[in-house]
């Protein structure tokens, strides 16, 4: 059964690499109550656990192999255009190893 507290929510946010204001955790706690109510609606469906999950609406049978023809990829300069910080043709970040 769904059981969360503020610490658990902080842990989840940390796993997702962001933080929230304290009041947002309170709002989220209330939303988890709603989630419980929502999930109860799914539980009420007859034979819900007897079927296979539906992952996509219907099967798409496409050839996934394109012609093996060379194309022009983006140049290094183009890729770096959107990088917030770059140096010597590479994306610059804080030191990983001191």
């Amino acid at each position, binding site marked *: 059964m*769904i059981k*969360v507290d503020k610490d658990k*929510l902080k842990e*989840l*946010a940390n*796993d*997702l*690499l*962001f*933080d*929230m*204001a304290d009041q*947002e955790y309170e*709002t*989220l706690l209330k*939303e*988890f109550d*709603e*989630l419980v*109510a*929502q*999930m109860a*609606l*799914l*539980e*009420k*469906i*007859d*034979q*819900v*656990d007897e*079927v*296979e*999950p*539906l*992952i*996509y*609406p*219907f099967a*798409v049978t*496409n*050839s*996934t192999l*394109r012609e093996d023809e060379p194309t022009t990829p*983006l140049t290094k300069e*183009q*890729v770096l*255009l*959107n*990088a*917030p*910080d770059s140096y010597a043709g590479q*994306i610059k*970040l*804080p030191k*990983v190893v001191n």
Partner: protein
Amino acid sequence: MDYNTLTIKELHDLYVKGEVKPLEVVEQAIAKAKKDTSNALEATMYEAAIEMAKKLGKEPVEVDNLLWGIPYFIKDNFSTKGVETTASSNILKGYVPLYDAEVITRLNRSKAIPIGKTTLDELAMGGSGMSGHLGRTFNPYDPSHRHMIGGSSAGSASVVASGIVPFALGSDTGDSVRKPASYAGLVGLKPTWGRISRHGLFPFTPSFDAVGYFTRSVYDSAVLLSVLAGHDEKDFTSSTKEVEHYHDYIPSVKGVKIALIKGISDTIANSSLRTSYEKSIEELKKRGAIVEYVEIKQELLNALFSTYFVISCSESTSNNANLDGIKFGARKNGSTYTDVIKNTRTAGFSALIKRRFILGSYSLKQENQELLFRRAQKARRLIVDAINQVLVDYDFIYLPAAPDVAPLFDKKSDNLNIAHLVEDNHLVIANLAGLPSLTIPACLDKGLPIGVNLTGRPFSEKSLFAVAHVIEEINGLRNITVGGL
């Protein structure tokens, strides 16, 4: 003459007759966009649009190309080469795509003229038109700015309803084109899943996402699909199924079997809509359609939103993991690599988006996955099976697109709430099942529009347009714009 209040077809006819040049039309669109007070624009492309219009003016009109010289707007979650694209999120501030989305490439090839980019609910995750980083987008039908236009394709709905352009691109994951179309008196299409390439559309929930768009006539909607549909090797979910000449449809409902789902049509809250809906049903019967009520188990209807919500939060959490400020986006500094990402995501996402990601991430955790994510996918199968069973016996499902006119901003929030389950969320059926689905204006109540919706079998768009055209004729609200009624 106000050229941008014409339909695509009407404007094209004027071009062919030589009565107007693209430059005049584009300048008029830009002038109207500059005066607009709906807060519908993210970025403008005015200089490039004028250049393109001047260039087209020196060429002969392409008589068989209905999109030649037609101005349009683009929802800001489509990649546009050289034009900042933020999906109305601060985390993407400054991001300038290096390529065009496939739909933009196709529209460029047809010589349609993009005028700018429009607002949306942040990352397309919302249905109110109030969660984007520029704040609320207003419904131009309500000068007091109290009623919303809906979302997530809020800005695109607004500019077409205002008669700034004849069409605009949107995207539809739950009802993000079809619901605002209802609130803005527009025709809004979500095609069959895979009918239009999604290459260059920012993914939200790939198993639901579809490129969609707003027009002011069913015919224009068919014109656009004839150009936008088709396989694209850059999107492996795009269908190889043959593309039809959709706008060659013959309007008719003779012998067409139409289902009305009782548990949904019973939820109409607005008396004008009820009268209009019932009148259209009678008229469809008179014109030879077989229209009947069918039942879907209430437990399945009640589960529509929960199923949609759990799957969409889960898929979006994963799809937006690349928004970290490292390779692109509005980076915030930090002393370590992880701090950079954390500070960027903390500052870049709104609180609403973060809460959705947490709910999604929780649903995907190994210990919860069976109870939440997998169970929602199982419910999806049962819902889709039930709908497909209806579509074995009937060609189309005809329903209200919304229970009432656009809600007031003060009465609606994007916070998770179990109220209004079926009536406000039934359009997700078409996303769960990948079906083509079209909203058409039904009536106005105290000056605010409300729409009806028609949904068909996969890849049945041509006959969907044929039947929708008849409904459009019955309702008598073809090509309505604010101030043009």
